[in-house]
């Protein structure tokens, strides 16, 4: 029994050491949602979660300006992870700067997971990821009251394959600025 537990601990330690390798963003970052409705939720007439906030549509909208101004509206995570790395912080620094310059805009931060987790655990993990982003933006000066978090667990993937590349795109937190 003791031997079993020791080897388990060793295995866990080994896993922890290699876990970092699994991290990092997909080689092809998915295109950001375009202005308008073409990519919103995928299905005509069925608003996706990213359009959960109903707002003004137009080239001059806050959403379009945000998407032009930041490297990405989303950051990516390793399997079962919710820590931010340098690239994530670079992205979020730009988001924080934009949000500071647009103090009237409130955002929703969505946390998502890949399909290779159980449903309830993924809900909690998505919440962790959304809050990791929220906490970072707050530390950069964005008032917490302007940010709402929501976890979608594995319910709303953007990449549809069942492979590591798709999963890497789905392990994400997205800062959603209303149209």
């Amino acid at each position: 029994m003791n031997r079993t537990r020791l080897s388990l601990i060793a295995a866990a330690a080994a896993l922890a050491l290699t876990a970092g390798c699994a991290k990092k963003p997909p080689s092809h970052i998915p295109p950001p949602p375009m202005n308008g409705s073409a990519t919103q939720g995928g299905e005509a007439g069925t608003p996706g979660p990213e359009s959960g906030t109903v707002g003004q549509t137009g080239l001059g909208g806050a959403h379009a300006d945000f998407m032009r101004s930041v490297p990405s509206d989303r950051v990516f995570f390793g399997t079962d992870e919710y820590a931010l790395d340098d690239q994530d912080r670079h992205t979020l620094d730009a988001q924080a700067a934009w949000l500071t310059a647009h103090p009237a805009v409130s955002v929703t931060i969505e946390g998502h997971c890949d399909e290779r987790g159980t449903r309830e655990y993924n809900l909690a993990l998505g919440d962790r990821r959304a809050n990791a982003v929220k906490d970072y933006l707050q530390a950069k000066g964005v008032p917490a009251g302007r940010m709402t978090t929501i976890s979608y667990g594995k319910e709303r993937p953007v990449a549809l394959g069942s492979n590591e590349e798709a999963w890497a795109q789905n392990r994400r937190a997205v800062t959603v600025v209303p149209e």
Partner: protein
Amino acid sequence: MVRFSLLLASALAFGAPAVAQMPPAPPPAPTSAAPAAPTSAEPPPLEVDVVGGISAPLPIDIPVMPTPASAATPAGETGALGQQVAQIVANDLKGSGLFNPSGPAGLPPVAFPQVAAPDYSIWSGTGAQALVQGFVQANADGRLTVGCYLYDTAAKKELTRQGFVVTPALWRRAAHKCADMVYTRLTGEGPYFDSRIVYVSETGPKAHRIKRLAIMDQDGASHRFLTNGQSIVLTPRFAPNQQTIVYMSYVGERPRVYVYDIGSGRQRLLVSQPYMTFAPRFSPDGRWVVFSMSVNGNTDIYRVSASGGEPHRLTDAPGIDTGGSYSPDGGRIVFESDRGGSQQLYVMNADGSNQHRISFGGGTYATPVWSPRGDLIAFTHIGAARFRIGTMSADGGGEKMLTDAWQDESPTWAPNGRVIMYFRTAQGSGRTELWSVDLTGVNARHIPTPLDGSDPAWSPILP
């Protein structure tokens, strides 16, 4: 090896159904009510080996159930109902994996007077070891009586009988009760055919699944949708009274646990806290709901009165604690936590004390569910790129894997603790199906649903 002999099964067989709407009916008025004379040399007792017996399921004959007088009812003509009831009994028994039924098609007709006095010259020669006979009768008050009789065709004797009086709308339940009578009498296991499944019906593209709560009988009949698909719905679970469901909905883009009343279709928010609540389950007495709440990225397990009020926190580890499920005596809760670095199973007392890990088999463990018999915990095991359904004893020993697919998840127990339902996700398409498997890991069956299906939850046995 535990073999339930006829004698043991006799001790376990239940008596009259404890149902107001289904009092035991009088036996039919046969012309000859005398039981067959016992033979001098008693054959070995009829039994079903419930541990290893699935390789040789018990052959059993189920002829059409006659009617004493053809009558039109809202459920159909009584003679036609006799055919359908026999078919449901056969389907239920076959589905258990423990029986190999013949009939009703292809078996000789049974005259009404023979229901209580079978013609053993016919039934002893079919190769079956048991015989189910019955009748369907329309009563003067508009209700139906379904009589159900079980015979040992080798010993040429009656083993048990029951009558069920139902409104025509509930005729299928009378058939399931009959099948449960046969199943419990011959296996010694508790009943489970007269039960329902609530689950999440899925359709639409992988990136935007439309999810609706749906409910159906255990055999897939009487299917209906409970929600319209406008909001994501997840993880429905029955209350012990079978009339109430707890589940999670994204209505208003605020993911929260709701309590839904099946009869009225009305629902209410479980708790008013401004955080995501999920993973709900009732306590066995129905007084409490255990659930998870994520507060600023930290998920803990809470308990709240089923009628609402202030939640009481049960865990405070900095990791993710979720998936709580009560033991059948209500004294303990099994749950999953990644407090040690990966998802593992833990057990605590119902007040949150004495939290200790029980899973040590390697890989990660999730979605624990305590068996209604109390002896086992079913779970999802993740390892070697597989999601498999398994069981272990409540103290963590005796681990056993029951399925082996790319992604099986979310077990739920049949009310007798003998069968486990779960859902299977297809690699690539992400499409989902409901499956069930026997506790021994055999008889894995796809449960057909009108659309895709996930997150099944089995009801208790209906009263």
